């Protein structure tokens, strides 16, 4: 058990207050930086992809976990990012400028959607975003003069400031730097008044409004931030895919993003990262499971969606805070070592909370 003694005013706003946290974060960062020296190219690319998904997860987490707005169409922003970036690159725009334009464009689309969505309530938004996702996928498919349609679109090579980043480790470092930037930025965001207003809107729209938060504007901002981060992830994803087809950005991808943040843990940036790790390991684990199980069970069609669904149900019913919640409990167990009891964390029963107006 460590007691925190504040000895300076800046202690109040310090990111990593505890020594343990500092050591852990430093270890993870060092390991990530050292990864290219330890891993083969294939695994390095997979790790880079994981980081990209972590960025996308943080994007969705900002919206769903922190602002309480469910989006079932977030892969659309991933797609908008990927397509915008690739099209700009193939028109000869340099990488950095293209990335900036992509992020701003994605944010603009997000704010536009957010402006409409801010007038909707609850699940209307979930379904509107689902429809938006399906429509954007259709647009990618039908607008073949720009997006290549279902034929696909080749992504230009990755060249940053005139340096071709063709090797796996170079691309990995690009992903890593941007991921760390996004994590840093997002955690800072939730300490600003803007970010706090997001959390207030999530916890109760009515109370937030009573406290003087401009709920509509907060929702629009949340959509903008979320779309910008997801668009950035999309641009990076394009370089990993190297060939874009509309189906990649369909409803299933949106659900995968959703699975990520639910299993990772709603309402925490760390949760999005955990979720990305989980989603990256899941296919490997499933294929392993298929080999281990007897053929009559392992080869059944539909085993994957079944397990996919079951995992979500089990996580939501038994551990609503996901892997992050488990992690918190584990940490508490070690920090308060002999004193952890079964009753240290008990889920409270609560009544139906409602903001229903109709």
């Amino acid at each position, binding site marked *: 058990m460590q007691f925190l003694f504040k000895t300076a005013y800046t202690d109040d706003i310090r990111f990593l207050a505890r020594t343990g946290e500092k050591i852990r974060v430093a270890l993870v960062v060092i390991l990530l930086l050292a990864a290219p020296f330890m891993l083969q190219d294939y695994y390095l690319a997979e790790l880079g992809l994981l980081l990209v998904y972590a960025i996308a997860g943080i994007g969705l987490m900002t919206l769903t976990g922190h602002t309480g707005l469910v989006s079932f169409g977030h892969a659309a922003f991933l797609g908008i990012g990927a397509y915008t970036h690739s099209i700009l690159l193939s028109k000869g725009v340099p990488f950095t400028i293209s990335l900036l334009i992509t992020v701003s464009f994605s944010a603009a689309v997000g704010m536009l959607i957010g402006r409409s969505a801010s007038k909707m309530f609850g*699940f209307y938004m979930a379904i509107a975003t689902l429809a938006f996702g*399906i429509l954007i996928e259709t647009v990618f498919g*039908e607008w073949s003069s720009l997006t290549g349609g279902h034929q696909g679109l080749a992504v230009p090579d990755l060249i940053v400031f005139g340096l071709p980043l063709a090797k796996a480790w170079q691309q990995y470092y690009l992903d890593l730097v941007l991921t760390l930037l996004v994590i840093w930025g997002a955690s800072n965001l939730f300490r600003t008044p803007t970010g706090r207003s997001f959390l207030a809107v999530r916890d109760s729209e009515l109370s937030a409004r009573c406290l003087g938060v401009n709920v509509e504007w907060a929702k629009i901002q949340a959509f903008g931030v979320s779309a910008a981060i997801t668009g950035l992830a999309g641009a990076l994803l394009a370089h990993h895919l190297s060939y874009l087809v509309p189906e990649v950005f369909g409803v*299933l991808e949106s659900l995968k993003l*959703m699975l990520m943040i639910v299993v990772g843990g709603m309402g925490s940036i760390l949760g999005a990262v955990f979720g990305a790790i989980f989603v990256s390991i899941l296919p490997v684990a499933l294929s392993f499971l298929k080999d281990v199980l007897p053929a009559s069970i392992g080869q059944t069609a539909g085993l994957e969606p079944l397990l996919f*669904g079951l995992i979500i*149900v089990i996580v939501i*019913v038994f551990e609503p805070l996901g892997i992050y919640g488990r992690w918190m409990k584990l940490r508490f167990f070690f920090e308060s070592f002999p004193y952890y009891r079964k009753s240290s964390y008990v889920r409270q029963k609560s009544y*139906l909370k409602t903001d229903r*107006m109709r």
Partner: protein
Amino acid sequence: MRAMCRGHGPLPQPPTEEKVLLPLNDVIHLAITGIAQGCAYGLIALGFVLIYKATEVVNFAHGEFMMLGAFAVLTFSEVLGWGFWPAFVLGCLSIAAVGYLVDAQIMRRIIGESQASIFILTVAFGFIFRALAGMMFGWNTRSLDTPFDGKIAIGNLVEINSDRVAIIIATVLLVGAIYLFFGRTRYGVAMQAASQNQLAAFYMGIPVKRLVSLTWAIGAFIAAAAGALLAPMTQIDTTIGLLGIKALAGAIVGGFGSIPGALLGCILIGVIEPFADYYLPGIKGVSAYVVMLVVLFVRPEGLIVQTYQKKV
């Protein structure tokens, strides 16, 4: 996800060179097909709205109840050879039991969690139901023999398949039954009370938990009936549950808070769809979502509004 874009039966092939106005009998044919499709959406939407009003849960897996219902009726009627009507009743009742259990065993545990978690939970149910249905009934497209395979002629203009008429009649009957149930019976009134204020209803001695589960059962029953009636038009496979999303779109177009609104919205979507597919093949299969988004942008609360401000 192309599977989300499937729907109605065969359409007249669009002319390749230019779009001409359809002849009148084709228009009537398309319109009646659309109304029938819309009624099927409406039946699913009815379940959505009932469950939403009772528990504030939007059951994204409701289309899967429809799919399971179609498969259950198919199994009872073909495998066991009981004929259509006994199989229909038994199939719908068994899906109602599934709906009851889903609420009593799982949904009840997560009352008070955030809305987002609950949405995602029901989406996950959809995945589980689809996978289980595929494992139990096979992944192939099946067709169900119903007593409605004749044609009904209206004047000498147009012939209508009687399966479409059956859906429309069944919708009217079921909606009438629901209306009477909620207006006239003890259970129905108790459900209304529980929907308005669960705690107050509980204090008045209403068994809220059981009634909520019963609402789920009723919703599932109606969806299963819709599935069985829709089977001649769409065939049966594991993806027809995704029509539920279109039903949801229809319900939103009409206004989720009211049952007549939801039905009207669904019929609207059902009618618009075949014409949009014919005239605007670019948005084939997604016209329902376009209509919904337009309505949401213009009138976020739906066409028929039933709204009041929440008191603090």
